[in-house]
C-alpha cells in the first residue's frame, strides 16, 4: 500500500474524467488516496472525488489559482507534498499536468515518468511503462534515488471506474502560498468547437489526404457528431490545410488512445500509426486494399469513404436513437 497524492484537474467548474481514472485506480489498489484540489470556488468538487474513492481532498484556494498558473501550482503542490510526504504523486498527461509536473519534480529533487500508459502499484512504489519514439516502442521507467515517485498518465489509459454515492472523502483546507509570480494567465480563450479534444475523446474519427478539401471534412464531422467523437487528421491533411494542427494525430501531432479510432482515407504512414496504435479498436476505411493502416486495423473496410461515411452516420444514428 502506498500513500498517493493525485493532482485534480478541472475546467469550467467540472472535474476531468482523467482525474477520476487516477483516483479510481489508486483507490482500487487499496492505497491511501489523497487528492490536491487547487483553484478558486472549487470546494464543492471534493464530494465527487470521494465517490471515486478519494480518502482525503486537500483544497487550496487562492485568486491566483482561479486560472491555471504553472508557478502557483508548483509552489502550492511542493508545499503540500512536503507536508503529507506521499510515496507517489500522479497527474494526467494533459496540457496542464504535463506543464507543472516537471517543475514539481525539480522542487522535490526527484525524477518524473511522463506520459505513462500502464500503471501498477507495487508496495510503496509504482511500476510504469511509457511509449518512446511516439509509440514505435515502449519502455519501463526505473526511478533512481529516494523520494516520491512522480508520473503523468495518458488520458484514457486506465479507464474510469464506477462512482459509489455512498463513499465520501474528508476535506482539508490548505493554505495556498503561491509565492512571487513572474507569469500569469490573463484569460482562457474558448475554442470554437463544441467537440471533445482529440486526446481526451473516447472515440476519434480521423480523415486523411483522401478527403481532398477542408470542406469535405464535413462528412467526417457529421459522423463524429453522431458518435460524440473528436475529429482528427493525418499530417498530410493538416499540411494540405484541411484541418488545424491541433487536430493532427501522429508523431508530430497528438498521440491518442481512444476506445475507438476510425481512420478514413488515411493510408497509415509510420508517423501516423505512432500516434494512434494504442487505440483499443481501430477501423480503417480506405480504397487501397494494400494500405499499411490495415495491418493494425481490427476492422478493415475497403471502400470509398465518400460513399460509406454518410451511410455509417445514418446507421449509427439509428443505434443511438434506440
Amino acid at each position, binding site marked *: 500500500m502506498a500513500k498517493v497524492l493525485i493532482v485534480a484537474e478541472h*475546467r469550467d467548474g467540472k472535474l476531468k474524467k482523467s482525474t477520476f481514472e487516477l483516483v479510481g485506480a489508486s483507490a482500487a489498489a487499496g492505497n491511501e488516496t489523497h487528492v490536491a484540489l487547487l483553484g478558486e470556488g472549487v470546494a464543492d468538487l471534493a464530494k465527487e472525488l470521494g465517490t471515486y474513492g478519494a480518502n482525503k481532498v486537500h483544497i487550496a484556494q487562492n485568486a491566483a489559482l482561479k486560472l491555471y498558473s504553472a508557478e502557483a501550482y508548483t509552489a502550492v503542490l511542493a508545499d503540500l507534498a512536503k507536508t503529507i510526504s506521499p510515496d507517489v504523486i500522479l497527474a494526467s498527461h494533459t496540457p496542464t499536468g504535463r506543464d507543472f509536473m516537471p*517543475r514539481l519534480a525539480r522542487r522535490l529533487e526527484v525524477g518524473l515518468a511522463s506520459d505513462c500508459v500502464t500503471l501498477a502499484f507495487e508496495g510503496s512504489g509504482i511500476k510504469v511503462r511509457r511509449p*518512446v519514439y511516439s509509440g514505435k516502442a515502449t519502455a519501463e521507467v526505473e526511478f533512481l534515488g529516494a523520494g516520491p515517485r512522480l508520473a503523468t498518465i495518458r488520458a484514457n489509459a486506465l479507464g474510469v471506474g464506477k462512482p459509489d454515492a455512498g463513499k465520501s472523502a474528508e476535506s482539508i483546507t490548505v493554505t495556498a502560498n503561491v509565492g512571487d509570480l513572474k*507569469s500569469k494567465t490573463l484569460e*482562457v480563450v474558448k475554442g470554437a*468547437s463544441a467537440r471533445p479534444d482529440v486526446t*481526451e475523446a473516447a472515440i476519434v474519427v480521423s480523415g486523411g489526404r483522401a478527403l481532398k478539401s477542408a470542406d469535405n471534412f464535413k462528412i467526417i464531422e457529421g459522423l463524429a457528431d453522431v458518435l460524440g467523437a473528436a475529429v482528427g487528421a493525418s499530417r498530410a491533411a493538416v499540411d494540405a490545410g484541411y484541418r488545424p494542427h491541433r487536430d493532427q494525430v501522429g508523431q508530430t501531432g497528438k498521440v491518442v488512445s481512444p476506445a475507438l479510432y476510425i481512420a478514413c482515407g488515411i493510408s497509415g504512414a509510420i508517423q501516423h500509426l505512432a500516434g494512434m496504435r494504442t487505440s483499443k479498436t481501430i477501423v480503417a476505411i480506405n480504397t487501397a486494399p494494400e494500405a499499411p493502416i490495415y495491418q493494425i486495423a481490427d476492422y478493415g473496410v475497403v471502400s470509398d469513404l465518400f460513399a460509406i461515411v454518410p451511410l455509417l452516420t445514418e446507421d449509427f444514428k439509428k443505434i443511438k436513437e434506440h
Partner: protein
Amino acid sequence: MNIYVCIKQVPDTETKIKLNGDSSGIDTAGIKWILSPYDELAVEEALRLKEKNAGSTVTVISAGPTRVVEAIRTALAMGCDNAIHVEIPENADNNYSAKALAGALKKEAKVDIVFAGKEAIDDGAAQTSQLVAEYFGMPCVTVVLGIEYGASSLKCKREVEGGAFEMVETALPALVAAQKGLNEPRYASLPNIMKAKKKEVKGLKAADVGVSDGDQKIKYKNFQLPPPKAAGKKIAGDPAAQAKELVRALHEEAKVV
C-alpha cells in the same frame, strides 16, 4: 538581445525502431538523425526576434553525445550566430540534460530569452523546457502558438485542450517552448550551410556545468516493440452492406458504440 535556443537531435520521423540485443535501448545503427521538428520552430522564432532587434545574437545550445553537433550545424545553417555543445552521455535523462543546458546558460553574461521545442519527438517527455527554466530560475510558457513581444515582458498564446488557448503574460527573461503553428521554419541556404561548417562550436563537459551521475533521476529499461496485431476482420460487400456490418460489429462485438 541575447537570444538562446535549446535543441535536441532525434531520429527522423520515418525511422523504423529496432531494439538492441538486451532490450535496454534501441539499435541506433543506420538511424538518420535530425533536428527535432519542434526545435526548428524555436530556432526560427529566435532568428525572427533577432531580425527585429538590431545588434542581437542567437546562440544555439545542445546537450548530448558528439553526434548532436550535426544538429547544431543545422541550426547554425539556418542563421544562428554562436553555438555551445555540452557533452553528456547518450542516455542522460531529462533532469540531467536540463541541468546541463541551464548550467551552460548560467555561464553566459546575459540571457534575455530562451526558446525550445514543446517536446522532442524521441522520448516525447515534454519535461526539459520546464526543468531548464527551473534550474535557471526563470518562468516558462509551454506549447506556444503565438508571441506578442513587449519591452520587458511577453504575451504568449498557449494551446490547451479542445482548441482553447490560455493567454499567458510573463516577465523576461523567460523560456518559451514552441508548438507547431508558431511560424514556418526557413530552409538553410547553400551559402549558409557552407558558412555553418566553419563556425566555432564551443565545447563544454558535464563537469564544467556542474552535472554529475546523481543528477540522473530516471532510467528507461525493458524496451518492447508493440505486440504484432492479429489480422483484423475484412468487411466486404457494397457500401451499404459494409456500413451495416461495421455498425453491427462495433455495437455487438467490440461494444465500443
